[in-house]
């Protein structure tokens, strides 16, 4: 009974959270809640990665790699970086182009959820992304704003430790997907809505 009450409360909280952030628009695609330590941004589902692997969770749609992720973010990567700094998140900034294959990303860890108009609730990143090894995705604030600005790839959240992405998954080192084939990531088509649907991605500092 206690569990049922807690679950109901959790679902209710998630629903309130998703509706509170639903005001995001193309003009204001990111919102910051300093009290709750959350950053939410608007994105679109890319149906391509329901059927083929990728190493990107979200990329700014006008970035060089804007079409290479499960979600096309509507927020520019440096604005996203600044939003995370505003909630007091500290970047690891430990990844470089030289150590990327031997180091995992450090920095503020986040829980990441995704919701959309008509969704039953906010889904965790582990539910919306299929990891072939079924390992939990641990997103950390890598930082990398200077490299990100220089390369202009638009990377927001990467699925393996990344020297360019603002936030990335510390479970794997760079190259796990593309080079060494340790893991494949795909969008979960059984949960996510169809291609082009607008979603809200929320990062909560842990």
């Amino acid at each position, binding site marked *: 009974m206690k569990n049922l009450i807690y679950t109901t409360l959790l679902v209710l909280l998630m629903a309130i959270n998703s509706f509170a952030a639903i005001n995001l628009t193309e003009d204001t695609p990111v919102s910051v809640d300093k009290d709750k330590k959350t950053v939410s941004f608007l994105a679109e589902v890319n*149906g*391509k990665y*329901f*059927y*083929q*692997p*990728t*190493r*990107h969770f979200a990329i700014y749609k006008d970035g060089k*790699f804007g*079409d*290479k992720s499960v979600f096309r973010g509507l927020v520019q990567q440096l604005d996203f970086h600044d939003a995370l700094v505003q909630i007091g998140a500290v970047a690891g900034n430990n990844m470089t182009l030289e150590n990327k294959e031997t180091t995992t990303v450090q920095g503020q860890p986040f829980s990441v959820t995704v919701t959309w108009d008509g969704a039953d609730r906010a889904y965790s990143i582990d539910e919306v992304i299929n990891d072939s090894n079924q390992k939990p995705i641990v997103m950390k604030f890598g930082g990398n704003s200077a490299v990100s600005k220089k390369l202009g790839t638009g990377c927001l959240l990467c699925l393996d430790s990344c020297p360019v992405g603002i936030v990335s998954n510390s479970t794997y080192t760079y190259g796990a*997907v*593309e*080079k060494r084939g340790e893991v*494949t990531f795909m969008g979960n*088509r059984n949960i996510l809505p*169809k*291609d*082009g649907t607008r979603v809200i991605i929320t990062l909560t500092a842990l």
Partner: protein
Amino acid sequence: MRQKLTLIYLGVITGFLVLLILNASVWLEMRINTALVLPLFTFAGVAASFWYVKRIHPGIVIALQGSLFLFLLLKFHFEIEALTIMPAIWLREGFLLNFLEIHEANAVITSTVLFANLMLLPFKHNNLERIAIATNPERGR
């Protein structure tokens, strides 16, 4: 004219086949827009239609088309739903038509395939004329 259109269609199919090969590499797929081979091969078909004068046997086109369909099925583990999404996305990315919805891109693909296959049917003007006469004997007099 039919010869020219057949060559262009052949270019489109070859483009899709090459795209499937390129797509097998995640490394490559993560770095470049591999779907750009679609307009490349389509334009190659257009270019070839200006100088290639020999007749293309419809069997070649049908065989290539069948292979493409088979490879698509194999790549996506016989998931028919994937076939309603992936070619449409490739078309959109390749021809830089990002404003197209999936169903609109699918309509373009379906129309192209239907038109191309109708074009491949061995109808000759004389045959059509004979059919017309058979259905309307007045026309034959």
